């Protein structure tokens, strides 16, 4: 089990997250929700070992995961929010780079790469450099790179951004299947419909603090609201969206 215990991170005087605690269990997909600037990305970066917390701990099976960062990182697969890739490499070259850094045996690596490329419908573009890939294609490469080494923990940050409808459907099922395989999955997204479909439980962040943490069904029942969208709006206390959109139109016309 992956437990986040009172995580706090400061950027100078700015407090990005404060006393954030939650757990992610094997076999479930934990959703991480929140408006821009709520601290989702900071939480994800700490979870992946890219950023050190100012205070608090990340525990894996009760042990401090960040104490042996190298071992912890070897168990993680991560899809970042922005598809920053070495654009002069081809898809297979990038996957080979990641696979080797992850220590995937050379014999298995090429076979795995070919299978991922075929299953993700980007096999025909294997000789093209990533600079010519669309955002969705790059996203598929990132997803393949994240699971290439069969990680125990998968962290996905806006993983379906830019994907076409059929690819998104396949990958939503794939994410559920990863969890069913006994792995820990953390899924951060802005798209509430996707979170509702994919996640077993959600953590809702606002201004660096947790404002909601439970299963989608129980949150809906507790707050007596019909959808996750309504739950989210209620918890983060969004302004009246109609009034705001009217003001945006006024600003556009001014």
């Amino acid at each position, binding site marked *: 089990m992956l437990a986040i215990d009172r995580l706090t991170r400061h950027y100078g005087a700015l407090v990005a997250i404060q006393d954030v605690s939650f757990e992610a269990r094997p076999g479930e997909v934990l959703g991480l929700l929140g408006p821009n600037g709520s601290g989702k990305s900071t939480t994800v970066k700490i979870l992946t070992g890219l950023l050190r917390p100012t205070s608090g701990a990340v525990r894996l099976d009760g042990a401090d995961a960040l104490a042996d960062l190298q071992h912890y990182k070897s168990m993680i697969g991560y899809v970042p929010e*922005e598809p*920053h890739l070495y654009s002069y490499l081809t898809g297979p070259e990038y996957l080979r780079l990641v696979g*080797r*850094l992850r*220590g995937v045996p050379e014999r298995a690596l090429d076979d795995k790469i070919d299978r991922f490329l075929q299953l993700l419908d980007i096999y025909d573009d294997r000789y093209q*450099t990533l600079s010519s890939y669309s955002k969705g294609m790059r996203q598929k490469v990132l997803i393949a790179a994240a699971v290439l080494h069969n990680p125990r923990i998968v962290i996905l940050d806006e993983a379906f951004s830019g994907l076409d409808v059929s690819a998104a459907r396949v990958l939503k099922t794939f994410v559920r299947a990863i969890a069913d395989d006994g792995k820990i999955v953390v899924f951060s997204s802005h798209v509430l419909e996707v979170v509702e479909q994919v996640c077993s439980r959600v953590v809702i962040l606002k201004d660096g603090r947790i404002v909601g943490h439970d299963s989608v069904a129980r949150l809906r029942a507790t707050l007596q609201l019909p959808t996750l969208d309504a739950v989210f709006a209620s918890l983060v206390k969004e302004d009246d969206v109609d009034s705001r959109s009217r003001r945006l139109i006024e600003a556009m016309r001014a």
Partner: protein
Amino acid sequence: MIARLKASRDRYVGRAFQATGFGVLFRTFFAQLFTSETVTSDVQLRQAMMWVLAFILTPCLLILIQVFPLFQLLVIRIGRIHPPPGVIVRATAVRNLMAEDMLEWAIQVLVGYSMVTVGLVAVFVWDALSFDRRDAMVLGPMPLRGSTIITSKLAALTAFLLGSSAAVNLLNAVVFGLETSDQFGARALVLHFVGCLVVTCAGATLVFGAIVMIRGTIAVIGGPRLAAAAGSLLQFAFVVALLAFVIGLFASPTRRGRLVIPTLTSWSPTTWFVAWFEVLRGSDRGSWPEFVALARRGMGAVAMVVGGAVLASIAAFQRQMQLALTPSASPGPLGRARVSRAVATLFVPRDHIARATSDFILTTIARSRAQQAPIAIGAAVGLALVVLGFVRERGEIAAMLLVVPLLLAYWTAIGLRASFFVPSELAASWTFHANAPDRSLSYRRGIRASIFGFLAPGAALVALAIGGAGHAVRVALVVVALANLLVLTIDFVPFTRAYEPGHAKLKTRWPLYAFGSYAFSYGALKIPILYVVLGVLALELIGRRTPSRWSTAPREEDFNSLSAVTVLDLTGGARAALTR
């Protein structure tokens, strides 16, 4: 009525946007010529550019200062000697001819220097000389006419040419004017100054226009890979040309005063500009038909090249606008770096991380021009030193030949090491941070393998051709020693950190580079091969103790700026235009 007023307002606003659009684009394109995606601070970048300019200007001034006393002596003698009629008239006439020849030689040097230095400056901003796909993608959706975009690009290039020409030639023209006219009066001062400035700037324009034309043509007929390869090749050629030019002038002073013979030199551009200078200053030679024809050829060549550059820029813009919609990129056979990767793999057959690192390094070098530039410069310095060695050799041509692969390998290795500090797609460096162990001996092995894979095949082949198998083995061992030594000075995965300008510390470290150049070339030839092997082993042992310094982690400032790299920053300009 209201409709007419609205139409009139729209026309006015449209025109105003076009006018401000030109200004905004001009400033943006001009700034693009001074922008580096690899440097963190603009101030440091400008300081570095000032140092480069000072480095470029100094040799020519030294040459002029060295030459002009001879010229003055000649002119003073002509002025002071009053020969009896019919006695030594012939000697005076010969001295007159010699003075004019020397003047022409000086102009030829200045024109040649101007062409080489401005050419060098131009190839260093190679990527910004033409439109690329990113420009097309940013500018395509904007409500701007194609003519506005092209005109502003050409205006920015013209401003850059004028600025660089003036920086290189103005001081030289002043020195030339003052030094060559003090016996001939104010008119000669003005004519010599103006003539020198015009022809040196014309020479610079010829080369700059030709480079812009080549860049534009490549953008039309080739892809980004060809552009990258051509850019690195031209950088290499111009660094060699500059160094060979300076070395040649200092090493062979006897060429001074050689006569310019139009029949032999009529196809040499510098001769056209010498003739143009004579026409401008109104000398006797300037009225000779041969000189007038050469001067016209020079003017025609400049006009043709400028026209060609404009046409190539227009064609490149149109082509990039098409390509923006249908991008296609294949690395091509050279971009795969098969030989060097295979050789590197021999060093790290079972180490996954080392293989990943060496493959990454060699593929990046093969496909990224930012990394190729320092390597091209290093190789060019090596080649220039080889030329110097042959110019200065005293009957030991066989020994000099044996040094060639070592000297080239050493300086290419220095360039290769410098390229490691130039980032490649910094935002993508999370790949290493997230997927790889933070510290590992494997990175060191991977880098060493990549240095060897990059240098050894070429160096050993040259050595084999020159000195046979024994020499090839010695050269390969020296390359291993060099790789072992260089890897001690690296503690991160190459290309994954932002570059700090001035990191190379050339101002203080050049004696070290010079010593290394001697030790790894002439020195390595003189010591027994067993000592080379022992050196390799000693460096290997030292290297094994250093992995604790290694880190794939980005520095805090890199981490915060990973998403802040921009190339064509039109947003600031667009805001400025909209608020006007």
